[in-house]
C-alpha cells in the first residue's frame, strides 16, 4: 500500500467513526409548546413539500395545515432547522380562506406589528431566523376547533460535488441548544397527509436519483431531462393510491395512530436526495442570468465545474484528529472509539498521528506524534475505549491543542469532528480565526447534524484553505466522507480568483473564493451592465504553480427565466456581511446593509423578519407589497419553466474553459483495440497449429 492509499484508508476508517456518531435520536422540526404544560398543543394535520431543482438552485415550498382541537384560540409556533445557505422568501397565511403573502420588514418592526395584530385578535403570521439554528414561524390565532393553512418557501443554491448533487430537507433538530430544548416540547407528528415531491430538471444527463434510508420513495425518470421523486403517506404524485406497503404505514418515520388506520408521519428525520450526473461530462461554465427588458443592470449566477486536472498527492502527512467528547456525544462514544481504532489500523507505516480530545477542556491522548505501528494502535485503542464523554464543548481549547501540536517541516492536516456548538471557554469567532492562522495547516471539518455552528466551522475551514462538510443523520454518511476523501488526496487550486473583462460587472460574491478542491464547483453571483462578450478567467495556484483557465461567452441583453437569481445574489451578500459581523463583532453599517438587502429582496435574515397581516393592515401601515410583486414575477417564470424541458445553461461550449472531463466517482474497466491486437499472435498461433496439425 502506498502513502496515498494509506491516507485514503485513514479516511475510510473515519467513515466508520462518523457513521456511528448518528445513533441517537434528536428532537425534530415541529410545532412548539411550552414544556411546562401552560398551553395545550396544536396538531400538524397536513405537511406537503414540493421541491424544484433546476438551473442550479432549489425552490422548496412547504405547505402545512395546523389544527387547534381545543376550545380556545391559540398561537402556532413552527420551528425547523435552517437549511444550508437558504433564506425564507415567502410566508403565506390563509386568512378568511384567501392566501395573504408576507412582507419583509426590519425585525423589531415586524415583531411589533405581529404582536399588535395578535393582541387585537386579528390574523397574523411571522417568520424569523434564530441565527444559524432555526427558522421560527408563528401564526395567530389558530381559532378554536379550526385549522390554519400556512405556506413557506425558501431558496438555496443546489451544487454538485464530484458529479453527485445533494439536496437536504432538514427536519432533525441537532439537540445542542439546551435552553431551548428545556423550554419547548416539539410536536413533530403529521396526523393527516404528508407528501414530499421533488422535481429535478437538468440539461446535464442524470443517471440516477437516490434517497438513502427511504427505500419506499417512488423515483421516476421523465422525458426532457426531468426526474421526479415522491414520498408520502397517502397518495402518489400522479394521484393514484399508494402501494399496499405504503398504505400499511411501513415507510420510515410512520406509525399507525391508535384506533385509526391513518399513518402518521413524524418530522424527525432529514430527507436527503442525491442525483448522479453521467460520468465523463466535460468541465464547464454555466451562466444563469436575470435581466428584465429595459433594465440596465442584470444579475447572474456563474457555475464553474472544473475538469479533472488535479493530480493525486504523493507525499505523506501528519494527521491530527481533534474529537469532540462532550456530553452530546454520550451514547455514541463507544462506537466512536471503535471507529478511531479502525482508522488507525488503516494507517501505513511511516504515517504519524496525534489524537486530541475535548469537552470542557482539551487533552492529548497521544504523547506527541505516534508512528502508526500495530503496538501504538492497540495501545491507544484501549485508552480511547476507557474514556467517558461528558461536560460542555470547549472547541477552542481542542483546536488550540491540535494546532500547537503540529510540526513545521511536515505537511499536516487537522481533522475536526464535532456535533456541537462552542459553549465554554473562548467562543468569539475572531479568536478562532486568529488561532487557525497561526500555523500553515489545512482544517477539514466534519459538521454533524443541523445545529452545530456551521458558519463558524465553515469560516475556519475556508480560512485555512481546507473545507467543511455538513453531514445529515440521513445522509449516506459513507458516501459523503468518501467524497471528502477524494478531495483531500488530490491537489487543490488555492488562492482562486475570478476576473471578468469585456463587460462591466460588480458586487461579485463571494469576494474571497479561497480554495477549490477536486470535484467542487465554483459558484459566483454578481451584477452586470449592458450585454455582449466577456472574457472570464479563473486563476489560482496548484502546488505553488500559477494556473489560469479562461473562456469567452456572452452575457444576455434580456433574461427573464430566472428572477430568483436576484434573491440568491442578495442572500449570498447577506451571508458575507453576516460572516464579517461574526468575525469582528456587530457593525452598524453591516447590520444596515443586511437589513436593506433583506427588505429590498424579501429575505428573512438575522435582522429582518417576514410578517403577514390582513391586506387592510398592510395598507393602513403603508407597507409596500414589494415581496408580493416579486413573488408574482417569480410565479410566472416558474410556470413557464414548468412547461418546457430542461434548458442548457452552458456558455463555454464554443471555447471550453477545461480540456478534461469532470471528475466523477464512476469508473469502468474498458479494453481497447490494443488489447485485441495483443491477442493476434495467439490467434495466429492457434490457427497455425491446427493447420499444421501440431498436437495441442
Amino acid at each position: 500500500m502506498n502513502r496515498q492509499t494509506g491516507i485514503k484508508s485513514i479516511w475510510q476508517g473515519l467513515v466508520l467513526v462518523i457513521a456511528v456518531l448518528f445513533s441517537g435520536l434528536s428532537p425534530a422540526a415541529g410545532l412548539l409548546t411550552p414544556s411546562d404544560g401552560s398551553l395545550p398543543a396544536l396538531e400538524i394535520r397536513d405537511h406537503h413539500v414540493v421541491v424544484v431543482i433546476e438551473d442550479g438552485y432549489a425552490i422548496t415550498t412547504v405547505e402545512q395545515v395546523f389544527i387547534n382541537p381545543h376550545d380556545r384560540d391559540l398561537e402556532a409556533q413552527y420551528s425547523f432547522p435552517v437549511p444550508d445557505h437558504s433564506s425564507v422568501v415567502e410566508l403565506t397565511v390563509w386568512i378568511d380562506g384567501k392566501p395573504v403573502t408576507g412582507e419583509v420588514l426590519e425585525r423589531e418592526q415586524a415583531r411589533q406589528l405581529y404582536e399588535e395584530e395578535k393582541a387585537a385578535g386579528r390574523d397574523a403570521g411571522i417568520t424569523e431566523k434564530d441565527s444559524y439554528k432555526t427558522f421560527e414561524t408563528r401564526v395567530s390565532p389558530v381559532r378554536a376547533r379550526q385549522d390554519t393553512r400556512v405556506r413557506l418557501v425558501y431558496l438555496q443554491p443546489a451544487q454538485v460535488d464530484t458529479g453527485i448533487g445533494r439536496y437536504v430537507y432538514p427536519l432533525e433538530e441537532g439537540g445542542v441548544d439546551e435552553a431551548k430544548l428545556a423550554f419547548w416540547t416539539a410536536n413533530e407528528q403529521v396526523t393527516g397527509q404528508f407528501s414530499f415531491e421533488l422535481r429535478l430538471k437538468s440539461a446535464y444527463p442524470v443517471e440516477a436519483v437516490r434517497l438513502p434510508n427511504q427505500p419506499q420513495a417512488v423515483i421516476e425518470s421523465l422525458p426532457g431531462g426531468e426526474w421526479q421523486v415522491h414520498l408520502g403517506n397517502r397518495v402518489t404524485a400522479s394521484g393514484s393510491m399508494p402501494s399496499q406497503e405504503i398504505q400499511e404505514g411501513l415507510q420510515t418515520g410512520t406509525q399507525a395512530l391508535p384506533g385509526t388506520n391513518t399513518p402518521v408521519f413524524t418530522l424527525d428525520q432529514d430527507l436527503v436526495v442525491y442525483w448522479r450526473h453521467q460520468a465523463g461530462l466535460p468541465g464547464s461554465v454555466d451562466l444563469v442570468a436575470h435581466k428584465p427588458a429595459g433594465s440596465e443592470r442584470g444579475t447572474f449566477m456563474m457555475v464553474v465545474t472544473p475538469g479533472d486536472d488535479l493530480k493525486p498527492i504523493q507525499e505523506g502527512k501528519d494527521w491530527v484528529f481533534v474529537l469532540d467528547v462532550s456530553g452530546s456525544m454520550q451514547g455514541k462514544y463507544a462506537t466512536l472509539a471503535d471507529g478511531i481504532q479502525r482508522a488507525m489500523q488503516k494507517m501505513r507505516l511511516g504515517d504519524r498521528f496525534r489524537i486530541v480530545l475535548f469537552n470542557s477542556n482539551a487533552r492529548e491522548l497521544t504523547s506527541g506524534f505516534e508512528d502508526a505501528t500495530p503496538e501504538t494502535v492497540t495501545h491507544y485503542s484501549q485508552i480511547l475505549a476507557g474514556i467517558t464523554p461528558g461536560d460542555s464543548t470547549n472547541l477552542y481549547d481542542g483546536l488550540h491543542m491540535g494546532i500547537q501540536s503540529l510540526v513545521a517541516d511536515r505537511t499536516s492536516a487537522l481533522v475536526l469532528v464535532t456535533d456541537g456548538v462552542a459553549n465554554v471557554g473562548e467562543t468569539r469567532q475572531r479568536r478562532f480565526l486568529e488561532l487557525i492562522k497561526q500555523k500553515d495547516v489545512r482544517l477539514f471539518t466534519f459538521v454533524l447534524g443541523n445545529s452545530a455552528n456551521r458558519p463558524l466551522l465553515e469560516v475556519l475551514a475556508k480560512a485555512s484553505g481546507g473545507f467543511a462538510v455538513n453531514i445529515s443523520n440521513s445522509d449516506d454518511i459513507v458516501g459523503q466522507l468518501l467524497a471528502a476523501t477524494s478531495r483531500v488526496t488530490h491537489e487543490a487550486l488555492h488562492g482562486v480568483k475570478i476576473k471578468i473583462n469585456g463587460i462591466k460587472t460588480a458586487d461579485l460574491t463571494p469576494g474571497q473564493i479561497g480554495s477549490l478542491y477536486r470535484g467542487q464547483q465554483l459558484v459566483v453571483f454578481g451584477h452586470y451592465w449592458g450585454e455582449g462578450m466577456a472574457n472570464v478567467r479563473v486563476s489560482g495556484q496548484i502546488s505553488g504553480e500559477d494556473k489560469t483557465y479562461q473562456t469567452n461567452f456572452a452575457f444576455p441583453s434580456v433574461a427573464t427565466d430566472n428572477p430568483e437569481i436576484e434573491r440568491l445574489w442578495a442572500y449570498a451578500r447577506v451571508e458575507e456581511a453576516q460572516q464579517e459581523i461574526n468575525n469582528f463583532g456587530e457593525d452598524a453599517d453591516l447590520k444596515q446593509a443586511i437589513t436593506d438587502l433583506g427588505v429590498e429582496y424579501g429575505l428573512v435574515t438575522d435582522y429582518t423578519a417576514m410578517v403577514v397581516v390582513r391586506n387592510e393592515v398592510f395598507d393602513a401601515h403603508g407597507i409596500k407589497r414589494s415581496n408580493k410583486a416579486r413573488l408574482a414575477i417569480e410565479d410566472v417564470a416558474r410556470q413557464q419553466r414548468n412547461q418546457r424541458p430542461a434548458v442548457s445553461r452552458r456558455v463555454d461550449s464554443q471555447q471550453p474553459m477545461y480540456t478534461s472531463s469532470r471528475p466523477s466517482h464512476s469508473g469502468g474497466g474498458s479494453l481497447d483495440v490494443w488489447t485485441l491486437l495483443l491477442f493476434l499472435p495467439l490467434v495466429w498461433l492457434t490457427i497455425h497449429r491446427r493447420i499444421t496439425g501440431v498436437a495441442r
Partner: protein
Amino acid sequence: MGSALHLEGRHGGIMLPWRSILLVAVAAAAYLVLGAAPEGWVYDRSAISQGEWWRLVTGHWVHSDLAHAGWDITALLVLGTLFEVRLQWWVPIALLIGTLGVDVWLWWGDPTLYYYCGLSGILNCLLIIGLLQLWLDIRHPLVVLTGIGAAVKILVEINSGQALLTQTAWSSVPMVHAVGFLCGLLYILRILMVGSSVFDSSAPNSS
C-alpha cells in the same frame, strides 16, 4: 501439465466454446436489454453497503456505453475462443477469481470510486490463467511475449491514467486491469506451489 484439453471434440468435430458463448450472450443481453450502466446492476458502493450484494457480481457484466460493451464483450469472445478448449470450466472459474480480486480492490483499495462497471478487470485474470495453460501446453515464446505485452500495456495505462485508445462514458480505471492481472498471477503461483495438475484435478468435466 497435461490438461487433456483438445481442440477437437470426442468425435473429432470442432468443439464450440459454448461456455464462453453463453457468457458473451449474457453480457450482450445485459447491455441490449438493460441499457447503459443500469442503475440496479452496477457496482454501487452505497447500495452494496445497504445489502445489495449482487452488484459485486453484476457490476462486471454491465457497461457504461456501446464502445465499452463492444470492446469488452469482443475481448471475452476472443479469449473464450482461444482458451476454452484448454480451460473448459476454468473459464468461468477464472472470471470468478477475477471478480473476487477486483471487488476486494474496489472496496478497500479505492474507496473513492463509488460506481464501477465493466468486464475488463476480470478478463485480465482470464487472460493470465489462459496464457499459463497455453504455456504449459505448448511452451511457445509467443505466449510469454503476449503476457509481457499485456503487462506493459497495463503499466502504460496506469501511468497515463486512462485507457490508451478507448473513450467510454465512465472514465477508465486502469488499476482494475492490473488487479485482474495480479489475481491471475497469484493463482499461477498457487498452481506452481501445489503442482501442475491443478487444472486437471479440480476442473469439473475436463474431458
